[in-house]
């Protein structure tokens, strides 16, 4: 059976996941991810049309709490762990392109 996964699929997924891959990595991951998906084909033959999917073992219920003020993390302590800060905020490189 041929791999269900093509090299361009892996390249696209890497881009979505914000990862850059070398050509060698792209080849290796295409083979390896293809093998894993091929193993998962044992599920594709099952007729599960009437089965309700389970995303969580006990089913999540909405949990609410009283709206009371309680201590939170200290801003300076949290920012001290950041790669870059400015004026009490996280700082990042530019987000928008330069104006033409």
């Amino acid at each position, binding site marked *: 059976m041929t791999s269900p*996964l093509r090299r361009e*699929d*892996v390249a696209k*997924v*890497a881009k*979505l*996941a*914000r*990862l*850059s*891959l070398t050509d060698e*990595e792209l080849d290796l*991951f295409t083979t*390896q*991810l293809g*093998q*894993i*998906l091929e*193993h*998962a*084909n*044992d*599920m*594709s033959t*099952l007729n*599960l049309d009437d*089965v*309700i*999917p*389970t*995303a*969580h*073992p*006990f089913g*999540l219920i909405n*949990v609410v*709490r009283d709206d009371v003020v309680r201590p939170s*993390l*200290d801003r300076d*302590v*949290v920012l001290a*762990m*950041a*790669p*870059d800060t400015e004026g009490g905020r*996280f700082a*990042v*490189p*530019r*987000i928008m*392109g330069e104006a033409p």
Partner: protein
Amino acid sequence: MKTAQSIAREVQSGESSASAELDNSLSAIRARDEELNVFLYVDEEGARATAASIDERVARGEDVGPLAGVPIAIKDNMCQTGIPTTCSSKILEGWRPPYNATVIDRLIAAGAVPVGKTNLDEFAMGSSTENSAFGPTRNPLDPSRVPGGSSGGSAAAVAANMTPLALGSDTGGSIRQPAALCGLIGMKPSYGLVSRYGLIAFASSLDQIGPFSKNVMDAAILLEAIAGHDPLDSTSLPEPSPSLVAHVNDGVAGKRIALVRELVEGADEDVVISVNRAVEALKDAGATIVELSIPEFRLGLSAYYLIAPAEASSNLARYDGVRYGLRVDAEDVAAMNEATRTAGFGAEVKRRIMLGTYALSAGYFDAYYGQALKVRTRMIDAFKRAYQQADLLIGATTPSVAFAFGTKTSDPMSMYLSDVFTIPTNLAGEAAVSVPFGTGEAGLPVGVQLLGPGRSEAQLFAAARVLEIAEDRS
């Protein structure tokens, strides 16, 4: 080495002290840590301060708690205030959490002394601890072999007598498999029994914290100390910590225990022999043994390796170089995100992020992730049917004893197969414990796995204790 129970008793009575017990632990770490690479960080200063304060409280006549002065190792995916927490990843290197995981608060409240953070497969993704960015941990019983994973460092700490207790986390077998490979008790509790607050997320619907120890009683003491509802974890079970210690010697008389064919299928012959011997021991102790086939277990691996990566791809999106950890600078923010993640994550983490992203992407969602969630329903139903015929299930924890370094690293599928017997429990959110029982190839320990429905921890410990007595370990 003394048990945790006897250390706590001696510290509380004044016969020993937390500081003296910590010294023993630190000497054991110094003796073998360089060889075995167990700890990523040893918090000698913090541990000494904690131990000294316990000794002062004992001197004042206070009851310090069930883990009075017991040194404990913590898997390095649990947050401890001010202590480097890496998940064995370069992306978190140097990060010091500004808060404690709930388990850390509860350990300290119980009188335990956290001594340091142990090695793991990066972000708990792996079965050998070979995926750590800080080098593999070696199995203390045979340093040419892996300790299992992903909680390999925690298992090795206990196996090497560095600490009598350790905490691990189990998403698909990451406590039970290393426990089996290192000859320890290791339990994955029911989903929600132990708070996940401060446990760095891998697959949120599967992750659960649990204990490692050399004997059943110590595991019960530790789990009882950390379990119970936590308002900071909205998925935590509503009730307080269950009574476990009091039931350790309840035995298995009158219990129905089912040997599950799919939980020994493909296992090495010496592993199967151990499971069969364990079944006989339970029968001798008064259990009724039945045999069951649960074909749905064969689908567990496929469902797991879509669900866990899907959740991981979402959970690990937070490592973007903005708020904490590594940043690799680039001309704009998107390029910075990509450069940071490319440099910070190892190959296995990238593999799983991509697999999960693919399984969740448009056009493939129904065929992969959707189908896996339906298989998960089937798995839960299959367990329910099994528990109409038996109180507990039994099988192997892993297909083989500890394997040599490098034997499974080039082929991810072969590594994933190490978890084939442990995964069903995580998918169903239930509980299971690995108990060392007999030896296999090269005299290495074999782990027998006992599985139970949600909230069956007391029954599982009681059955594990029967096996412990049959092996004449204590």
